[in-house]
């Protein structure tokens, strides 16, 4: 299975406002201009409420900007229908959430199979790949376990296996170690780094932990919805 090409993602003058025009209007992002080249490892840092998750949702096509434009490989994604954005997400984006978000009624293997099933891949193929991915994250023996039978670290490793199931070119991780102890966090970060490197995928990692952010080669800092720093490692 060949990896999907990582897209070149561009944000031009992107703003996102919630409850726009209302008494409780929240301006989560303001005038963000940003280019995420293919294969980059980018951390997004900043205090709580600065707009990190909103930025990730916009890049990952879960949300649309109030103003400005998000472009993938030069094409505005705002012109696509909800169905087209879903398809693009399925084929190109892998999400890793802070709270893992595994489906509780599915086993670990079934959770990993889910994106492949949505793509219509044959059952034997996705079964074999789920086992292969669980082996890659060190959980082959736990394939039949349900999420409630797994530790936090194990759940996040299953979530990572699920995120890379369709070989996405873009991995988006929102505080992936936020709910883990330091040992599990290190395992998860090592795993993420390895999988990103193997697939030449773009990894955008939201964190407010400097040690986690240190693994990235480019560091974005947000404050009050604005991009206040964009630092690249030498």
């Amino acid at each position, binding site marked *: 299975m060949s990896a999907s090409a990582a897209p070149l993602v561009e944000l031009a003058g992107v703003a996102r406002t919630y409850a726009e025009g209302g008494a409780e209007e929240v301006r989560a992002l303001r005038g963000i201009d940003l280019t995420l080249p293919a294969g980059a490892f980018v951390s997004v840092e900043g205090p709580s409420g600065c707009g990190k998750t909103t930025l990730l*949702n916009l890049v990952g096509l879960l949300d649309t900007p109030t103003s400005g434009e998000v472009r993938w490989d030069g094409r505005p994604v705002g012109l696509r229908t*909800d169905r087209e954005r*879903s*398809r693009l*997400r399925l084929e190109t984006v892998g999400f890793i*959430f802070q709270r893992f978000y*595994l489906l509780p009624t599915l086993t670990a293997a079934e959770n990993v199979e*889910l*994106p492949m099933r949505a793509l219509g891949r044959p059952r034997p193929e996705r079964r074999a790949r789920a086992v292969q991915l669980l082996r890659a994250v060190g959980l082959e023996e736990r394939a039949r376990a349900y999420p409630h039978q797994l530790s936090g670290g194990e759940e996040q490793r299953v979530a990572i296996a*699920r995120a890379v199931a369709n070989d996405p070119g873009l991995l988006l991780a929102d505080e992936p170690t936020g709910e883990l102890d330091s040992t599990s966090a290190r395992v998860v970060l090592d795993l993420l780094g390895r999988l990103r490197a193997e697939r030449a995928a773009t990894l955008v990692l939201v964190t407010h932990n400097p040690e986690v952010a240190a693994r990235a080669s480019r560091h974005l800092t947000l404050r009050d919805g604005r991009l206040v720093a964009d630092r690249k490692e030498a």
Partner: protein
Amino acid sequence: MRRASTSRSLRHARWQSVLAVAAIASAVSLPVILVSVGGGVDAHEIASLEQTGYQVVVSAQGLHGIEGAHQDSAKLLALPNVVAVEPILSIAIDLFNRTGNVSAAIAEGIVPSQFGATLSPTERGLFSWPLALGDPNDTEHYADGAYDGPTSYDVLLSAPYAQMNQVTVGSTVVLSPTTNASLGVRYNVTGLFGPQGSLFEPAGAFAALVLLSNLQVLTDYARGSHTVVPDGADTIEVVVAPSTAESPSGLAGVEREVQAVLPSYTVTSVSSEAAELRSADGILTGFYLALSSVGLAVGLLFLALVLVRRVERDRRSIGIRRAIGLPQRSVAASILEDGAILAAAGGTVGVVAGVVVVEGLATWASSTVKEAAQLAIFAPAFLGELVVGVVALSVAASAAAVHVAWRVDLLEALR
């Protein structure tokens, strides 16, 4: 995997799923019981009608009876292709046994020599032949309408009555048109009919068979009054020669001849009565289904509420699926599948429950209910259509849940 995950998802909300299945099952069991028992009873009646020995019936709908029953019967018997004619008068009377105990019963006045030909083979088996009712042609007592000839006052009683009232052949009972025994006439019990402890007819477990002229005298149908006609009968049953009866045109010809002899009365064929009964059965089935649709609507409403409740509870799972990239139609399909599984389970349980209830009634219920339940017919096609219909309706019931799922805010669900 979807099937496995769906069944697990349903187990996850076990009690809600159980209640939804129970609601649909109870709604489905009602038409199963009503239609199978009602249809069975109707089918039995139609079969009985089609097996009778007579083919044409004369009745006096809207009148006080057929006047001149003896003479009219003689005229009909003279028609070509008519082999037997039986005038029948059926009246509710009171029967007093030796100790004075009174029981309501149906008395039938008949002409013994004609009676056997009008019965079905099964009915004929209930009697000892020839009937021990004295005058076989009921002409002596009738005496050309004078009713002053001799009579034997013989009566045949149904076995259930005789059994419950300790009446034996050779004893006497009093037949009275009222609850006053002094207005009645004492009859000699010359025979019994019907199996012990069984029913002669659903409404005639206690029945008495006497000469037509005797019953006419007892109930004023001999002389006539302001409410009844002289020499009266309720119906005249006409037995047509077998070769003619097998031909619809031949039978129709006999019907026309009978009508020409008795133009004031209604003449119908048993086959048309059977057709009317079938039509009535269809209407009744429709009524049962309409009645059951109320329960079904409640069951499906409950299913809709359960599914909406599940969607509300599973907002996060829906959000996760959509975040991964599963299209909304995939989520909708999952909900519809859940609804269909619950409806199919409810429909199947309902069918099984309905069958079990009917079988239970056929085994343990009392008298008439038991007999009706024993006649029940479980048509596989109807039961299958019922389950399929419920599953199809579940799509409509699931629509509300699909609508709610469609409106789930992705970011809100993941928060």
